[in-house]
């Protein structure tokens, strides 16, 4: 296995048959392009959401496309010693592979487990595949895409730094060039200007893009988390005109003209917001995934001024779920910060 792992597939290599996590064989999918997506975590909403986006991209890329999805949390069926794992050499990585209808690896991308794959790059790769003339012959010209998602079994949840997500130091110019990624249907996008953490950011978005996705995927402000994506968990909480709201249920286009504050905009320089300091002091998190939402919600709670007792804080924070159940520490942190903010 180690021998194979040392020589994983390169662009232009022929992909051998291997078994897929859903029990089917790669060979069965020959004759159509395939996307294989690998994720190192069993349960990662960001990954689940990304696979939805990939599926959507494939459908938009080719109308007749079918999207075959092996359950992304099927990781327990995934054998790291399998022919699939060794051929692609993906254990512990987040990776995407694009295989054409002849079985040739055409494109691949690997990122660290805690990073997301840029949709812009996927779109570009798909466009390139489309641009290359297909073999004559009706079927291959009308090739439709299938995507098969697999997930490697190495569970490596990113440890969240206490001070939210470190922002990659990217020059503003480069960021403007990167975002937005090439729209896959230019006629469907409209210009959207968002005022985020005091800065006006110009984007070109489809109206259906949620504020959460605009922040994460287009502005690369990944401190705001995607939990359930349906307004049930509070991980995506941001401040809109000073009020705590859910960015997953907000259309970005409707947030224009409003002041949006994310976790990245809470501290002033190196000085943490008192709620951030209190969360660290009281160890008010375990995995940290819900923490940005908890902190944004808690800072708003203090400003609202309706909740002071433990019971009132619990009730007022009931829109922020914590699967690690750090609730007692969260309450302790809020109570301490509440005193500091009020006396400040």
């Amino acid at each position, binding site marked *: 296995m180690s021998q194979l792992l040392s020589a994983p597939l390169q662009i232009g290599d022929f992909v051998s048959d291997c078994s897929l996590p859903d029990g089917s064989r790669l060979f069965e999918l020959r004759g159509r392009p395939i996307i294989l997506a690998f994720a190192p975590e069993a349960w990662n909403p960001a990954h689940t959401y990304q696979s939805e986006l990939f599926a959507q991209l494939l459908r938009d890329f080719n109308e007749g496309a079918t999207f075959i999805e092996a359950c992304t949390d099927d990781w327990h069926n995934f054998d790291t010693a399998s022919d699939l794992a060794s051929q692609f050499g993906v254990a512990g990585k987040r990776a995407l592979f694009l295989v054409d209808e002849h079985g040739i690896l055409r494109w691949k991308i690997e990122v660290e487990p805690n990073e997301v794959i840029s949709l812009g790059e996927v779109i570009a790769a798909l466009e390139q595949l489309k641009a290359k003339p297909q073999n004559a012959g009706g079927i291959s010209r009308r090739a439709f895409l299938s995507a098969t998602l697999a997930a490697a079994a190495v569970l490596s949840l990113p440890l969240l730094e206490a001070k939210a997500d470190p922002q990659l130091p990217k020059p503003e110019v480069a960021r403007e060039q990167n975002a937005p990624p090439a729209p896959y*249907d230019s006629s469907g996008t*409209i210009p959207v200007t968002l005022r985020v953490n005091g800065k006006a950011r110009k984007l070109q978005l489809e109206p*259906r893009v949620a504020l959460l996705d605009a922040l994460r995927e287009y502005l690369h402000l990944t401190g705001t988390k995607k939990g359930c994506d349906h307004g049930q968990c509070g991980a995506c909480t941001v401040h809109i005109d000073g*009020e705590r709201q859910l960015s997953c*249920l907000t259309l970005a286009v*409707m947030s224009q003209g409003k002041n949006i504050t994310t976790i990245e905009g809470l501290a002033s320089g190196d000085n943490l917001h008192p709620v951030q300091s209190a969360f660290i002091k009281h160890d008010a998190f375990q995995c940290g995934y819900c923490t940005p939402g908890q902190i944004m*919600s808690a800072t708003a709670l203090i400003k609202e001024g309706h909740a002071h007792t433990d019971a*009132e804080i619990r009730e007022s924070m*009931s829109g922020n779920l914590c699967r690690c159940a750090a609730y007692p520490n969260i309450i302790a942190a809020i109570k301490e910060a509440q005193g500091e903010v009020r006396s400040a």
Partner: protein
Amino acid sequence: MHPFQYERARNAKNAVSTVAQNPTATFIAGGTSHVDLMKENVHRPDLVVDISGLPLQSIGGHDGGIRIGANVSNTQVAYHPDIVARYPGLSEAILAGASAQIRNMATTAGNPLQRTRCPYFRDTTQACNKREPGTGCAALTGINRVHAIFGASEACVATHPSDMAVALSALDAIVQTRGPRGNRSIPFTDFHRLPGNMPQLDTVLQQGELITSIDLPAFSGRSHYLKARDRASYAFALVSCAIALEMNGGTIRRARIALGGVAHKPWRTPEAEAMLVGKTPSEVLFRDVARAAFAHAKPLEHNAYKVPLGQNLMVRALMETSGLLPLQGTPGTAFASSAGSVAGIIPLSA
């Protein structure tokens, strides 16, 4: 999510005519229910008209009561001093629903328009006459624990999920609308429909008809909301009960009772309400009233528990409203409206 065109409404007139002319167009304001259902592919509008910027944002006195603009957020209503003082049952109902974040986004007009939480409605692989007329009702023979015990049909057994709407029903609120053919005042009790054989229609609103305000009539009695749910907070009602009680000395002059979580609309109980008129509040009386209110309930396979739960909840709501039992928390707060503890802590007594 189905792609759509987006338009920001310039004014109400424009918004109404745009949506009225396009059967696949819809209004959007807070978006909490709408965006969620669009993500689920349950709602698939081609055109979304954003009315959140329209000047329907004020709360103020009106005809002895209070007029609440369509775009006023649920939070603003719940904490408005006049609402807390004069209609605490409405504040209690709003604060018993959703989360602080959602209440900041959700609007006065949008809350009563939220769609059912029937899981089969939200699952596009299941039969649902409300989502796709003619496909059948998977809940009728499926897991129907959270479904209706009143007013359901063979076509649909869904319940209406709003807490706020139950209080508005008990308070006999009026829905003011602007439609393509002019303005209407719709009594809240007539606003939502029973499913019948057209469960796809939740309300009597026409395509393009826009709610401009919800008006609370003058009211000098006591109001209260009590809710039973699976979790202590942030869960939809299994059964809830809104009471509006007007006293004449020691006897009841008028009582209005609306039940939530039991029907396709807030379920008023006229026969039970009539039994209270002229009577002195007592537990015996309230038990008789609750029995009568649920006499015609038609439970499904998994929701017969709603009958005793609802009866007991109604008795307790009446006891608390009439002062025979203390409220579980300060009037106008979530603590007053929660049956049982709140968020895992036994609440403070009022």
